[in-house]
């Protein structure tokens, strides 16, 4: 029997910046290469969260778009995403999506954009823009590489666990050395790049989590030839080490 998995791409039309779409491509391809049928459903403004999403993806956007999305996510829709995460659905969010999965984002001018509180974290607009290659060390995923480009500063609260510690780059806020957040199978971070194609171990963890969300018995994923993926991974790692 062919296994199936459904990827829910939140606001793909409005929030897809700095190549974030590459993450959806990576999930889809690595599922296909193992004979898993991966369907992608885009979830836009005004559209409810469909039942049966195994992996959510939510990318970054420009300011104008984030305001419209924050309105849309309030209420039942945000509640549906939060419940899915509680039931074990996998989720990857980056930059703007990550901010709205915390308690909210306070821009320079204008009202606070409310978030849905999957992560116990709060974000505010900062005075400078953090731009550059990033390397982090994560207890669960070892080394992850990406490219950050954000002026928002995120502070983790309470028991909220960071995705990892910053080795090169700025991370959540440039102060406490943390980057990203992880709760159950949900990840938020500032890592563009695109992130997943050059961190195949993270991609496979999301796929595995998504499959476990759908099926009661899931074998370990078949290993793939990841030579090109890790060539790109090493390449990004060396750039983050040498950048000024």
């Amino acid at each position, binding site marked *: 029997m062919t296994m199936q998995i459904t990827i829910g791409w939140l606001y793909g039309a*409005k929030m897809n910046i*700095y190549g974030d779409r590459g993450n959806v491509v990576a999930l889809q391809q690595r599922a296909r290469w193992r004979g898993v049928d991966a369907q992608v459903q885009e979830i836009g403004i005004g559209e409810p969260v469909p039942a049966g999403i195994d992996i959510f993806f939510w990318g970054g956007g420009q300011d104008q778009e984030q305001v419209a999305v924050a309105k849309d996510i309030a209420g039942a829709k945000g509640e549906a995403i939060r419940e899915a995460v509680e039931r074990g659905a996998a989720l990857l969010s980056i930059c703007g999506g990550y901010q709205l999965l915390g308690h909210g984002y306070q821009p320079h001018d204008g009202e606070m954009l409310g978030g849905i509180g999957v992560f116990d974290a709060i974000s505010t607009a900062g005075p400078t823009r953090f731009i550059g290659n990033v390397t982090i060390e994560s207890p669960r995923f070892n080394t992850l590489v990406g490219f950050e480009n954000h002026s928002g500063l995120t502070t983790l609260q309470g028991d909220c666990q960071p995705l990892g510690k910053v080795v090169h780059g700025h991370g959540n806020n440039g102060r406490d050395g943390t980057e990203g957040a992880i709760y159950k199978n949900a990840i938020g971070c500032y890592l563009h790049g695109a992130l997943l*194609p050059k961190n195949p171990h993270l991609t496979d963890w999301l796929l595995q989590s998504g499959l476990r969300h759908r099926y009661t018995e899931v074998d370990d994923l078949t290993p793939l030839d990841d030579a090109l993926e890790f060539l790109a991974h090493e390449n990004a790692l060396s750039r983050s080490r040498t950048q000024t």
Partner: protein
Amino acid sequence: MTKSSFDPRLALSVVGGKLTGTAIRLVGRGGGTAAPGLVADKVDTGLLTKLSAQLPQGAVLVAGTNGKTTTTRMIADIFQANSWQVVHNRSGSNLVRGVVAAYLGQSTPGGHIRGDIGVIEADEAAMPELVRRIQPQVIVLNNLFRDQLDRYGELDTIAKSWQKVVAQLSPEVTLIVNADDQTLVALTDNTPATRICIGLNEAHHRLESLPHAADAAVCRVCGADLEYRALYLSHLGEWYCTGCGRERPSLAFAAGDIALHGDRNSEMTVTATDGAHRLTVGVPGLYNAYNALASAAVARAFGVPWDVITSTLTGFQSAFGRIERIQYQNRSITLALVKNPTGFNEVLRMLTAETGALRHPTIICINDLDADGRDVSWLWDVDFELLAEGTGDLFTTGIRGADMANRLKYAGVPLTRIHPLSDDLAAAFDAFIQQVPEGASAYILPSYTAMLRLRKTLADRGIVQEFWEQ
């Protein structure tokens, strides 16, 4: 100030700038195209304004993410064919200091400029400052695409800064706007300047849907979804808003009946208020039809006759590295600059247009230096899926060649066709050439600094000219 008056500060700054340029070329550090401007600008910040005021025909300034180098070159060539001496930042150094350097290059030590008309390519972020200093009487807004976003912050920032500039123009200024770009229309709607809309009315070369590289099709005024009666390139097309009813304004210059001849050239008909004009454009691809259309509209704004325009565009050769053909060791090589998703998509469209797939060996060279954009994530917004079918092997090099190779894998290109080479461009180039059969064709697609590096290698071997000599 009259032309004969002597301005000591201006003269000092011209002399200082000129000496810097000579010094740089003498020590062999490159073309010296921007540093002289930096020196001169420090001595006299009013230099550009003073020199501009001396040009009898005034100046035209071109801004936009894509096509500004090619468009300004077309305009400059047309003006030269019209017997005007042109002051032009031709080497593509398009920040304020690059423009100052270009003006210096054609000034006497006494501070007098030798030229009839200025043709200025403006970087998106430098555009407001250049308009303020040069006060051109014709401004072209070509398009706004996602480019190297880590340099500018976000597109919104540029759009807002442009809007501020056009709101302060005088009615004597002619603003030529690519009306197929809804953002440019929205930000020029209330300008006091005389707005001339240009665009395509083309029946055949249409896209089915928005490419991934295109920004969300959302009305810039009311936020409702935008629809297209015809979509031509990225988000450019005949658009209308489903909410507030805005739509593409009527066109004063419209290009149509376009025939694209692969990687060679194209033909089109430009319909203007004075009739329809069939012309050949010496460079290929739909994006160059847009550039040619803009250059024709500019030339008409300055009263240049149509026969001068059409004959110049027919013989037009592209800017260095944008698209260039070279013969090397009995191989025909086409070099095409790729610097952002939309530009890359159009190059891929051109290379696969006639045969439906990539047939020739191709090397993609990706760097991540400042001028390339330090963030290579833009590669994920290019539709490399177009290359999945086809027989041409794909080689990669450059500082981020590994990212490129991985991108091709996820686009569905079989691993047997992907060959990551050394990140050293010269070594990779030599290895690549060995893989191209003698007498065959090949493509080289470099990012900006990779292109400069590659041309340096080729110039050292006597294959191409150094770019500041062109």
